[in-house]
């Protein structure tokens, strides 16, 4: 595929990784956070940690909307499908996430609730038009990438005069979350590693542009490099961060200039601004309450706001006590530090949010990284070695 294959050249990847190893100062430790779950997945999938020097660590940030949605919000969506008899349309990402008492959208669907997986919010609108006698709710999650499409369908529903369509809005904002990681007292109390720079999300930035990052590059003196999701993009971004740190610069650099401009997509930003407004505060799983970090539907479109249309009880939900997702989302712990990791918590049987989405740090680590640093040749308990010696 054009614009994909040319960014996956293995020989070039080794060259860029070689430059990184050349340029890091041996006495210095480098901690870079990749905010976005897409980057986390790419880092593990392409084996990037093995290419990096020992004194350069990637910290996996909270940029995975599935992982950071609080259980109470998911419970409310499940509640809508079960008790209010609506057709609940959801992106596939949310279906298997365990809510309270291990219920998930997929389980209640199996029990008879009308939950439908959609690829696009356009499909939810079509389902509403085809079922005028039923209430249809679209379960909207995601960062700035996913928000403009939701804004467009709300406006389209109004233009079409649909009376049975509403949106349960959980859209989040990237810059607010990054600021929170850098300054919130809760996060400070919970502990966070010192960070030397950020890899900025590519697709979010196609919408918001590189502009918002300038504020905290200046304010917090942290370099930011916006990067694409292919392995060469990632490695190039890490190299650019190393150079900034070495030269004492804290600037916003754009490695994904093929689709990210300073201003982003003005049309998308305008449609979002006209449809949504800031929430004063929103709960993030693992970060707690984050001020001005999420959006809600404007009063003008109240008839399409599922939160105003239906009364759903929010009960605070208990997380599995042993689950370390919160600390992992803040980069304080690694999936291996969690006693549930790999047994019993797996992508097939996820107990915590970081294992549910393939972009969660635990799932990425489980799928691609859990055997790293284990030497099979010397592992006497490994099945393969036992079999060999029996022959």
């Amino acid at each position, binding site marked *: *595929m*054009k*614009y*994909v294959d*040319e*960014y996956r*050249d293995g*020989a*070039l990847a080794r*060259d*860029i990784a*070689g*430059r990184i190893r050349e340029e890091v100062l041996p006495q210095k430790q480098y901690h870079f956070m990749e905010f*976005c*779950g*897409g980057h986390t997945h790419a880092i593990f999938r392409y084996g990037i940690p093995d290419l990096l020097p020992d004194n350069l660590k990637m910290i996996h940030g909270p*940029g*995975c*909307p*599935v992982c950071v949605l609080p259980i109470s919000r998911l419970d409310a969506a499940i509640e809508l499908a079960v008790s209010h008899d609506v057709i609940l349309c959801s*992106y596939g*990402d949310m279906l298997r996430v365990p809510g309270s008492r291990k219920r998930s959208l997929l389980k209640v669907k199996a029990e008879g609730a009308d939950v439908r997986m959609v*690829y*696009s*919010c*356009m*499909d939810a609108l079509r389902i509403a038009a085809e079922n005028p006698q039923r209430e249809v709710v679209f379960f909207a*999650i*995601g*960062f700035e*990438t*996913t928000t*403009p*499409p939701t804004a*467009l369908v709300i406006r389209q529903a109004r233009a079409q005069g649909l009376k049975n369509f509403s949106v349960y809005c959980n859209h989040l904002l990237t810059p607010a979350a990054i600021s929170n990681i850098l300054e919130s007292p809760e996060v400070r109390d919970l502990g966070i590693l010192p960070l030397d720079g950020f890899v900025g*999300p590519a*697709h*979010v930035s*196609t*919408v918001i542009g590189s502009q918002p990052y300038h504020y905290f590059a200046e304010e917090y003196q942290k370099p930011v490099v916006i990067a694409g*999701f292919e392995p*060469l*993009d990632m490695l*190039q971004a890490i*190299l650019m961060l190393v150079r900034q740190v070495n030269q004492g610069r804290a600037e916003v650099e754009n*490695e*994904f*200039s*093929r*689709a*990210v401009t300073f201003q*982003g*997509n003005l*049309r*998308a930003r305008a*449609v979002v601004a006209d449809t949504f407004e800031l929430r004063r505060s929103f709960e993030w799983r693992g970060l707690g309450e984050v001020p001005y970090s999420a959006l809600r539907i404007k009063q003008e479109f109240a008839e399409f706001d599922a939160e105003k249309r239906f009364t759903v009880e929010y009960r605070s939900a208990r997380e599995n006590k042993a689950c370390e997702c919160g600390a992992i989302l803040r980069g304080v712990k690694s999936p291996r530090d969690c006693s549930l990791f790999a047994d019993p918590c797996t992508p097939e049987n996820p107990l915590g949010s970081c294992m549910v*989405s393939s*972009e969660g740090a635990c799932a990425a680590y489980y799928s691609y990284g859990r055997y790293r640093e284990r030497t099979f040749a010397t592992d006497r308990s490994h099945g393969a070695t036992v079999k060999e010696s029996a022959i």
Partner: protein
Amino acid sequence: MCLAIPVRVEVIQSPDMALVDIGGVRKSINIALVPDVVVGDYVILHVGYALNKIDPQEAQRTLQLFAEVDEVSRQQRLENNP
């Protein structure tokens, strides 16, 4: 969740919709957010919507950056193994 893919615009079907080629598969997508798109453009596709156009010159420039790194490494190999 926020992953998107580069796709080529094949046919503009209406002001809001276009037919695109996704690695050999054809699909109708919404182009309301990129109104100036024309046939042959590559756009970033996410949940059925085009979010932005890909700038072919900038893409070339990024590939150029990689090539420079490659060249530096080649030179170093030559110096180390004359």
